[in-house]
């Protein structure tokens, strides 16, 4: 059902946790689907210096969360905003069709966290 890459990220998720006093935090999810993802960031010089996730969800939800943190870490804010849910799925070598729409929200969580960071900057 899941690719090896998905199972690897599910079994050994990268960057699990929550950054205290994060520069940005974003949470997305859908209670019906049973996926809730929370991403917290540290930003320095417009670059994502630290990123962590917490996820309530299925294997795909955990793996996409883990993958998106890996993809975003070290990127500039602008680069990170380019990461799409599709790109995350591709980096995982694909997701089962049923999961494509439902549990593939990690890039949205990342975006929400970045927007939170930007809002705080402008505040």
């Amino acid at each position, binding site marked *: 059902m899941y690719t090896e890459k998905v199972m690897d990220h599910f079994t050994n998720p990268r960057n699990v946790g929550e950054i205290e006093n994060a520069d940005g935090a974003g949470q997305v999810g*859908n209670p*019906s689907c*049973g996926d809730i993802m929370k991403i917290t960031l540290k930003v320095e010089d417009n670059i994502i210096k630290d990123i962590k996730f917490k996820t*309530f*969800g299925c294997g795909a939800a955990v793996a996409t969360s883990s993958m998106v943190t890996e993809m975003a870490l070290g990127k500039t804010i602008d680069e990170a905003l380019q990461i799409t849910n599709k790109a995350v799925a591709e980096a995982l070598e694909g997701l089962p069709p049923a999961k494509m729409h439902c549990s593939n929200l990690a890039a949205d969580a990342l975006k929400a966290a970045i927007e939170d960071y930007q809002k705080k900057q402008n505040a």
Partner: protein
Amino acid sequence: MRKVYFDHSATTPVDPAVAEEMLKYLTEHYGNPSSIHAFGREARKAVEKARQQVATAIGASSVGEISFAGTGTEADNMAIRGVAYANRQKGNHIITSAAEHSAVLNCCKQLEREGFTVTVLPLDKYGRVTAQQVADAITDKTILITIMHANNEIGTIMPIREISEVARARKIIFHTDAVQSVGKIPVNVDELGVDLLTLSGHKIYGPKGIGAMYIRKGTFWQPILFGGGQERRRRPGTENVAGIVGLGKAIELATQNMHVEAERLAKYRDRIFKEVMEKIPNTILTGHPEQRLPGHVSFCFRFIEGESMLLMLDMKGIAISSGSACTSGSLEPSHVLTAIGLTKEVAHGSLRLTMGRINTEEDVEYFLEALPPIIERLRAMSPLGEGCNPCACSTCTIHDEDHHDHGELSEDEY
């Protein structure tokens, strides 16, 4: 790695004695039961023997009351739609429960689309409906009551006898889906007082792809598939001889050993309940604590999602299931879990463990050791927790948008 199969409500291994019987009817006695020659007569004999085995197991008074079907689902379709269509002149109202399997619920939904009215009775927190609820729902248009005997997801046993008394007093045809109860607890059509009863081979150590319908003599009914005259004109198509033979043998074996086996599995069940509830906080036992199937254990673990639990247990060799949306291909968590009053979030954390003939005490111990660290690990990874309402977070975009368009897979995605 140790392999522990704890998903007997999903399906069971075919008993070696059953497989042996079946094999003969694949390669050796391969005749078509409708053929008059020796090959055909041999196949016919085997089919009729199996029919007798099923009739005996459920206490039917005549073999003529048993018809074989392609699956438990088809048997449910036959029972429900066959009664509905045949009795349409009398009325168009059907009573069922929120606990039913999709094989029953989706028949009822289809009948609604075709102009029938369906009352879906709500469940109490244990997953039961009462005879009183049924009595209150009856109208003078009611032609069928269909309430399952035991629930597949939470193991709860329904008070069928009480309900059937109401049905009988009001002269309404009563069907029970006994797919999960046959072979596990006593099932006798007269004691239960049912007019129709359906069962499936693969839940009782028989093969997949064979079901049966009991229909009490005199019950108004019509077929839902059309073709040849097989199964007393009730279900057309060349009989699945090996499957039928397998179902016959399987139901015989299952009912023979039922009481001893039920006691053994109930002991495992109660031990798991006790230890898990003690060791793991924020755990909800789902279904009735006592009025439930002997080998059936079900929980919800708060703050975590079922599929991840299941995958982690799978990595330990433990095969188990969940009513989480993510395991069912649908987008909603189990309708049974929400019907017993759980929120969707909690329902997503469900786990169902169903034990059977091949399980041992060691399997139970292995599981009881494997589970707590997995729950702990997933909870550590979860943004949810006691006193934390995720929707209160400042940046929450949790939405309950209609995902229905994603429900149907397009051709390419399959």
